């Protein structure tokens, strides 16, 4: 009798697994592709805010060189005070920019979270844990001298494992449906947002700001050197070292901008490809999509390294 009950339970569980697995709109590979796509993408989307921050820091440093080239104490005081006030205002600009790009990052992080293994593994782990705990409770109950027959143990743990497996399959189907709906419905918005971000990064305004910092750094340092020469003062060695460091940083700005644009384009294309495949009901991830995702992750790693320098 007990054997029949166990068999029925196992057959029912296998049927449930079979039905839920066949209902899943996405394959594991597709969900993994979404997870990989969003792994590092938040690095790219925060680039406009970081560019603002880097330009602000460069502006302050070159401004200090320039202030040192002024001949009167009064003029130098006014310039340094203005630099300090502008630096504080720039911090507010950077904070606002970070807040705005956080909306992009929220989407990327949320998509990464919904496609993560933890969404379906967690439930299975808990169910297995419950089965084991119930078995422990029964074991401890049997150890008490209650006078009643012992309750059979081991079945709760077995049931927990089987139910956990079924629950994991069900959750994977739920996850697949959720990821599919999000990617397909959100693709238009994502494409529009990526286009907007790319337009901002490639805009004439951003271009001019970057060019202005690069050229003004040279001009301001030249003025500083000319002023020291006029006063007959030697140039501190550390000034040259700082100038070289600042030159390196300004030269990196266009590279950061261009890498971010490439990465955003890659992200947009990969997202659109996934959405098209999901909408068409395809279950396989084509090789070129994996290559696109890999290219995106490499670009994102490069951007991350440049932004942290």
């Amino acid at each position, binding site marked *: 009798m007990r054997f029949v009950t166990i068999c029925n339970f196992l057959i029912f569980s296998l049927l449930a697994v079979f039905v839920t697995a066949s209902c899943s709109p996405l394959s594991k590979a597709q969900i993994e592709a979404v997870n990989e796509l969003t792994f590092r993408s938040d690095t790219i989307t925060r680039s*406009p805010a970081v560019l603002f921050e880097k330009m602000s820091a460069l502006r302050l440093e070159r401004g200090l060189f320039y202030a040192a080239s002024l001949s009167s104490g009064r003029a130098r005081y006014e310039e340094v005070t203005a630099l300090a006030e502008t630096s504080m205002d*720039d911090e507010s600009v950077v904070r606002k920019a970070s807040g705005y790009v956080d909306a992009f990052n*929220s*989407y990327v992080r949320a998509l990464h979270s919904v496609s993560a293994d933890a969404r379906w593994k967690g439930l299975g782990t808990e169910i297995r844990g419950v089965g084991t705990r119930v078995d422990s409770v029964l074991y*401890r109950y049997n150890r008490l001298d209650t006078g009643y027959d012992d309750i059979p143990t081991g079945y709760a743990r077995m049931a927990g494992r089987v139910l956990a497996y079924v629950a994991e399959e069900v959750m994977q189907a739920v996850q697949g449906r959720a990821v599919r709906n*999000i990617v397909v419905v959100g693709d238009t918005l994502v494409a529009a947002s990526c286009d*907007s971000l790319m337009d901002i990064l490639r*805009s004439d305004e951003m271009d001019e700001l970057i060019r202005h910092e690069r050229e003004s750094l040279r*001009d301001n340092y*030249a003025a500083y050197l000319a002023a020291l020469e006029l006063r007959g003062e030697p140039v501190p060695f550390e000034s040259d070292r700082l100038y070289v460091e600042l030159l390196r940083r300004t030269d990196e700005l266009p590279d950061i901008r261009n890498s971010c644009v490439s990465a955003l384009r890659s992200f947009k294309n990969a997202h659109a490809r996934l959405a098209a495949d999901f909408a068409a009901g395809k279950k396989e991830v084509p090789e070129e999509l994996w290559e696109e995702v890999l290219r995106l992750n490499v670009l994102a790693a490069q951007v991350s390294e440049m932004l942290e320098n």
Partner: protein
Amino acid sequence: MEKGAINRPASQTQSEQTSTSDLRTALPQPLSPGDVAGPSARSESEQQTLTDIRDAIAECDTLRLDPSLPEADRRDMDAAVLTLRNLERELIEATSETLLDRLEAASKPLEDLARDIRTRVTAMNAPAKALEHFKRLASLATRILREAGRW
């Protein structure tokens, strides 16, 4: 580098006695948001003015750092160049604000989508969280039965 000169691409030199007011009027005045037909026309003007200010500052530096300039004139030139630096800062701020406005407009549509996804993730985690409570209860019951067995 030639003494007192700023190392710059060749440009027309102005008269040595350029006053502050001459410098201000020589530059195209920064445009206010209501003055022009559209954002692209305004940004093009801002870019041109940023370049002009950069050139004007460089020319001013060439003049004020000339060794033959009297000290009083040099101080006057310092005041003039401070005005240009303030103009530069205003223009950079205006250009940054333009970019920020575009960034804000671009980010709004994704906020709602991100919120929807987070709600789904919370719902997907709910069964696991509920079972975690049940697991703790079972652990507590095991402990109680173990202690009861010791009596």
